[in-house]
């Protein structure tokens, strides 16, 4: 049986779904950023064990499909005796995924800060944390903004995969509507357009930031 929807009703349902896409993206990006910062410190620490452990962490998350990560978290958390909703599994999964990528992006930025800056600050008897806080991170931050904004586009696109574990966001709303209306061309076209509207401004902003950085150098 086909259900008739007016275009307006379709758009409203998709907007409802898009709210969850935005919420999940924002959450994953914020928590992923915080976790990523911890990973970054561990990745650059003086302890060999920590460095190796975080290297493996990053490689595992960058070397396996996001879908598998979500499945593992979904089923793994329930094995641990937790009541897992798709929302929780998606949030945890995308947070870990983002943290690995952000840590790696930021490491590149920290390493791009000239060695002399480390040497100068250590000759001023600054501790590791002081060096990071006052000398290295402020400079690395300037380099990091453009790729970080660029990565937020990856996070938004990544949330589409959460629809597969049953989280009802933009893509899932779209497939439910497509099944109900038998208008897949229109619906998926609208879904794609919605993602484009969310992502393209961020892409443009990232490009703009990158150009600005290169001009000032």
């Amino acid at each position, binding site marked *: 049986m086909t259900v008739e929807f007016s275009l307006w009703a379709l758009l409203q349902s998709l907007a409802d779904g898009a709210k969850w896409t935005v919420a999940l993206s924002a959450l994953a990006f914020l928590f992923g950023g915080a976790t990523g910062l911890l990973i970054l410190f561990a990745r650059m620490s003086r302890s060999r064990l920590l460095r190796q452990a975080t290297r493996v962490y990053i490689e*595992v998350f960058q*070397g*396996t*499909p*996001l*879908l*598998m*990560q979500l*499945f*593992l978290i979904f*089923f*793994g958390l329930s*094995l641990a005796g937790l009541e897992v909703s798709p929302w929780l599994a998606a949030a945890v999964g995308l947070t870990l995924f983002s943290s690995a990528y952000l840590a790696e992006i930021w490491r590149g930025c920290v390493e791009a800060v000239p060695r002399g800056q480390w040497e100068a600050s250590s000759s001023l008897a600054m501790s590791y944390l002081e060096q990071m806080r006052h000398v290295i991170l402020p400079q690395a931050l300037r380099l990091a903004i453009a790729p970080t904004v660029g990565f937020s*586009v990856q996070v*938004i*696109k*990544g*949330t*589409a*995969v959460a*629809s*597969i574990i049953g989280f009802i966001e933009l*893509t899932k709303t*779209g*497939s439910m509507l*497509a099944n109900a209306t038998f*208008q*897949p*061309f229109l619906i*998926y*076209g609208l*879904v*794609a357009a919605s*993602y*484009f509207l969310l*992502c*393209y401004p961020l*892409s443009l902003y990232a490009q703009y930031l990158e150009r600005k950085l290169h001009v000032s150098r």
Partner: protein
Amino acid sequence: MAYQFDFPAVFDYTDALVTGAGVTLGLTLVGALLGGALGTLGGVVRAWRIHPLDWAFRLYVEVIRNTPFLVQLLFIFFGLPSLGVQINEWQASILTMVVNLGAYTTEIIRAGIEATPRGQIEAAQSLAMNRWQTFRHVVLRPSLQRVWPALSSQVIIVMLGSAVCSQIATEDLTFAANFIQSRNFRAFETYLVVTFLYFLLALLTRQLLNWVGRRFVAPRRPCSPEVR
């Protein structure tokens, strides 16, 4: 009672795992070849601003890079038939991978071509190389060399992304995982093994692409210091 892990329950289905891994590799191979070809064309068109294709490729790249792979796949698989194009799950999966990879490689190869120093092209002209020779030996090959690591990473990203092709019943590695866990009810173990297999496939693909890069893309005869 603590949960008892049962990995043998997964390895009872080794056949399905091997077939699935083979399909994923096959999809990646075809996707990489066709996507690479499309991206090379796009990269040249974008770098040399060949009108009006230039504009079309720009639109194409922006649309693909700002929408999720899964939505592209659903659009192609469910949307195209309503335009009268009959398409099965294999064609849809490959088409999506090609279209997706093509957009990213267009940008990567464009960057490589734009980094060609002008002097190189002038030098080629002064050696009486024709346009095709200049393009092939002086522009394209060194450009590919420059961006080969980025291209390799993109191929691996698409391979890992292709896990969602199981959603339209393409029988890849993820499809095998879903099948196995529906039989043995050991979801966690199954997905853990399959995740590990993806990790191995990614490593293997990286090695393979590094080899291809060294063997076919890097300069055939490195100049000796005297010649330089």
